[in-house]
């Protein structure tokens, strides 16, 4: 691991964390925030503490997690074009979210988890279970079947969503479309609490396997010869990455391109050692999404854009550039 590089990315992450809460349609100054509680500037303080800070924290964590899972899936599947949503996580969680939006009678509330979040997570969980079961072979998990099954589930979910869209009422459709655009416009810290039970252990599993992921970039026999138990690593990284991505998507919706572009940027800038790539992807992914969100809430202020639109506008051209790059096979 290149500690200096990781520290550099961490500093960028911290800098964005400190700066971005001050950016937004409402002008907030440090004197507003640090004034006594019952002063005239209390609303600004409220906005800062209960809207801006949780929103920035969620952007940092969500962006970081999407980039982290993108980085591990790209090496796991030995495919530079894989992102967290390639496995059908996006489509299945969207289907879960759409079902609960359409049928409010199914609403459940469990601790800090909202109904949409629970159903989106349920959809993603079912998808992960299904494609993992389909990919089981006597010699371990087949990564090719995993990938193909994920793409197939994605297509099936898209079909189901189209059918539900045709059958749904306009109000539900608007709510669903907003969710699909991806958003981190949360109020309070409940969403952050609800992320932690699944996200923290899942991310820990991914970081724990970062050194084995270096070997996964080699041919299987070379990796096994080095002493890596590739069956266990594949299983753990797939489940860890899937759960981490699903837990984030269930809260913020399918925010595209962060998980695809950021790991490539990190590898171009800082080399291929996964022990460096993984933490740096997390830090850069978080910083990028927080900055995109800052742009989303200021570009056409006082109206806010869903952050998914910003990431798509920036990420799309970058992705095309990546696609035509002659170095793509080395990324």
């Amino acid at each position, binding site marked *: 691991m290149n500690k200096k590089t990781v520290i550099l990315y961490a500093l960028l992450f911290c800098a964005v964390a400190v700066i971005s809460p001050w950016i937004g349609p409402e002008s907030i100054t440090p004197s507003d925030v640090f004034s006594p509680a019952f002063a005239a500037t209390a609303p600004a303080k409220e906005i800062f503490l209960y809207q801006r800070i949780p929103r920035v924290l969620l952007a940092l964590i969500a962006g970081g997690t999407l980039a982290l899972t993108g980085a591990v899936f790209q*090496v796991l599947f*030995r495919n530079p074009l894989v992102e967290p949503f390639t496995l059908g996580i996006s489509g299945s969680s969207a289907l879960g979210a759409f079902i609960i939006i359409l049928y409010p009678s199914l609403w459940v509330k469990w601790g800090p988890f909202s109904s949409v979040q629970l159903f989106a997570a349920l959809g993603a969980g079912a998808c992960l279970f299904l494609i993992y079961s389909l990919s089981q072979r006597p010699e371990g998990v087949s990564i090719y079947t995993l990938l193909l099954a994920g793409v197939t589930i994605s297509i099936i979910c898209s079909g189901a969503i189209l059918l539900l869209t045709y059958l749904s009422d306009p109000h539900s459709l608007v709510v669903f479309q907003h969710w699909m655009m991806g958003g981190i416009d949360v109020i309070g810290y409940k969403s952050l609490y609800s992320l932690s039970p699944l996200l923290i252990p899942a991310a820990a599993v991914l970081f*724990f396997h970062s*050194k*084995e992921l*270096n*070997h996964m*970039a*080699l*041919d299987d*026999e*070379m990796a*096994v*010869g*080095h*002493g*890596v*138990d590739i069956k266990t690593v594949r299983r753990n990284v797939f489940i860890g990455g899937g759960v981490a991505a699903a837990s984030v998507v269930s809260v913020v919706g399918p925010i595209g391109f962060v998980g695809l572009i950021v790991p490539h940027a990190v*590898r171009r800038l800082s*080399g*291929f*050692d996964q*022990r460096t790539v993984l933490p740096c992807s997390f830090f850069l992914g978080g910083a990028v999404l927080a900055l995109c969100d800052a742009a989303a809430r200021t570009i056409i202020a006082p109206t806010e854009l869903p952050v998914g639109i910003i990431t798509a506008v920036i990420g799309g051209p970058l992705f095309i550039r990546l696609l035509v790059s002659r170095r793509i096979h*080395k990324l």
Partner: protein
Amino acid sequence: MIELKNIIHRFPGSDWELDIPSFSIQSSEIMGIIGPNGSGKSTLLRISAGLLNPVKGMVHLSGSNIRKIKRKEIAKKIGFLPQETGSEYDFTVKELVQMGRYSHTGTFGTLRSTDFEAIRESIKSTDMEKMSNRRLSQLSGGEKKRAFLASVLAQNPDILLLDEPTSSLDIHRQGQFFHLLLGLAKQGMGVVVVTHDVNFASLFCQKLIFLSDGKLISKGDPKTVISKEIIKEVYGEDVLLGRHPETNNPFLLPRLLIKKSNE
């Protein structure tokens, strides 16, 4: 020491069968496995490394059934260099060689002074010192092979299993490579090398195994096992057999090519 006991292996949906009687891989010697394409050389090597479980028979590593030993423990004793070596990512030589220390490091993969020493030694012994900071994409085929060998040597194994390691090397590099193996064997390492080059195997190996169609045809000292009859049986080819003027080891040339060139 690796002991193979009455190995039989079949691949699903295939009539082909590997049927090898018991033999062992000893320390301090180079054993060559020779045979035509599809004779079972690589399969035998993969079974020896514990990468493939035979349908029948057992492989013992230092007296224990290899199937019951964890991969990390096997990697400390057996170094395996497959025929296909490639990487999805463009690692530097040093990064690749560091990966060879995986089995010796703990949970966080922190390298200690002994690890750095092993890395330095393996880079030095494969003559990759000047290229240690180069990326794999900047190396020739032969240099890449040596970089991967260095990562296997960094494991500090007792036994080295190599699948056609010299296939992409010129004659000079092949000689250097076999000299390197000879040096490792003198230090006590057991080396098994799958090769198509009977002449290099004759010069450098202490023991040869000839395979044909999954069967062991002959086994023993190169000076005794390399004969016209054995080569005819293994390859179905008449050869000209000669003796190395300095070592008296047998070498061979294909007769067919000479006939054609005289026509």
